[in-house]
């Protein structure tokens, strides 16, 4: 070894060893994700490319294109997701705005109100809505008692019930990033706009609103993406009338043992989800947005 490159090999080995040791700390988690998620899901996906006889084929995908029932499921899924996202924006934006204008202490207190449902069991919330919305439920009971309507309104086991339940679950996902963005907007901008002669409405739409768009966009995308994979809420509050992709996947397996069809649907769902997420990640930072649990 030439003297001027003394210890080069040893140092390189040490560096590699240290990095591998640190990286190794992540390996149990990596192994778990590989064994419990990547492998099973990959295995599943290989099934989608096999015909019922076990030969390599695109039969399941062809069927998905040909059978109108599949197209309907995708249309429903997109409709429900888009409607949920839209309603979330309509309800979440004003709330996030008001929270962002409150003093920080008061806002933090109100945030508990937003976070409490966020972490309450999904099933408990779905159950609560069922109790409120069903034919003999609380809302129909009060409505009839007060004479607002005479026959029980169909509030649940349909699209309306599903939407109410989903909006309730997804709203915090919209509010959290939006609120963060709004808090970070420097109030001096609005002051400057007012100083330059903009009225309240103009100052809002031309200054505040555009500045809040990144948060709104990030939150809305997350809501839409998570909606695509919903299962529990449509299953319980949709009463069999709202069938989204996840529900169809479950039925294909539980009732028909049709792994091929279910897998093909799963591939499409996953590709859609990850594709949208990838697109979203290129537009906004998502680290702070995620953090919910299974829907």
């Amino acid at each position, binding site marked *: 070894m030439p003297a001027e490159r003394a210890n080069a090999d040893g140092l390189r080995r040490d560096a590699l060893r240290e*990095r591998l040791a*640190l*990286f190794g*700390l*992540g390996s149990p*988690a*990596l192994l*778990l*994700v590989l064994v*419990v*998620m*990547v*492998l099973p*899901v990959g*295995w*599943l996906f290989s099934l989608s490319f096999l015909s019922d006889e076990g030969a390599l084929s695109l039969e399941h995908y062809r069927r998905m294109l040909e059978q109108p029932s599949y197209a309907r499921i995708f249309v429903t899924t997109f409709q429900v997701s888009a409607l949920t996202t839209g309603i979330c924006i309509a*309800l979440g934006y*004003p*709330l996030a*705005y*008001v929270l962002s204008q409150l003093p920080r202490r008061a806002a933090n207190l109100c945030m508990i109100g*937003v976070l*409490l449902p966020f972490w*309450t*069991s*999904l*099933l*408990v*919330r*779905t159950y*609560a809505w069922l*109790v*409120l919305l069903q034919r003999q439920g*609380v809302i129909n*009971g009060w409505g009839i008692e007060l004479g607002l309507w005479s026959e029980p309104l169909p509030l649940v086991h349909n699209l309306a019930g599903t939407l109410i339940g989903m909006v*309730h679950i997804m*709203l915090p996902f919209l509010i959290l990033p939006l609120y963060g963005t709004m808090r970070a907007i420097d*109030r001096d901008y*609005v002051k400057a706009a007012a100083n330059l002669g903009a009225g*309240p409405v103009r*100052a809002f739409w031309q200054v505040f609103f555009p500045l809040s768009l990144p948060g709104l966009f990030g939150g809305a995308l997350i809501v839409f993406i*998570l909606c695509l*994979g919903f299962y*529990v809420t449509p*299953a*319980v509050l949709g009463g069999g009338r709202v069938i989204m992709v*996840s529900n169809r*996947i*479950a039925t294909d*397996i539980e009732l028909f043992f049709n792994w091929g069809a279910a897998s093909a649907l*799963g591939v499409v*769902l*996953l590709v859609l989800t*990850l594709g949208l*997420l990838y697109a979203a990640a290129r537009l906004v930072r998502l680290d702070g947005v*995620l953090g*919910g*649990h*299974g*829907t």
Partner: protein
Amino acid sequence: MSWLSRPATETQITHGGRLWLYAVAALVMIFLVVPTLIVVPMSFSDSQYLEFPPRRWSLRWYANYAGSTEWVQATFTSLKAAFLTMLVATPLGTMAAYGLFASRLRWVRPVYVLLVTPIVVPVILVGIGVFYAYAKLKLVNTLLGIVLAHTMLAVPLVLLIVTSALKSYDMNQEMVARSLGASRPRAFFKVTLPQIRFAVATGAILSFLTSFDEVIVALFVSGGANSTLTRSMFNALRDQIDPTIAAISTIMIVVTTVLLALAQALGRQRQGS
């Protein structure tokens, strides 16, 4: 009222002029909070039918719950699974967070992304994928199977929380500790861990809740004696509305609230120190 005529923002709009906005915000807050809480008083109703407000109070649905071996067994399964998930996911996630944070290898970013994906992959896919794999490995309806799957779902949360704590932690402290004679593991346990302990504890609490509340994977891979509470509830919901579920829901709300209050208190302490 003088408050109403006071300016609300820099643009001179008054609070009075924005009352409609406050009303909307209040309604949305009610929409968020009330439906969950309304279950609590209803669970104390004496009636066969769920009513609000209850006309007569009783604990019969709690008695019903406590008397049902099926429900009690499911509760224990859920608690066991959640506890074990917490026990495994917390160190796994913390180790991964530290390792990936400190290692400067090129594959750190892709591995991080892969470890976080379970949060966004539609759970139904994990459910049936795991079901398919477990069928071959004879893990269906076992506690081990549930814990493995739930740990996989919980690790990303621990990873995210601990990583964000490490980002605001001053790594110089660990370097100082090492220069003073502590080996790297020792420096981690004596200096770094005590300072990120609140994040780790929060991660642990959220791991517990993730498992305790998880429905879909449990639906596919738990069953029989190892049926989780959520699985039993889901099946009961599809059949008929049994007020016992209101009682169970109340219990779950209490568990969640207590744990979250704990996490919140930890967070406050973290800011304080």
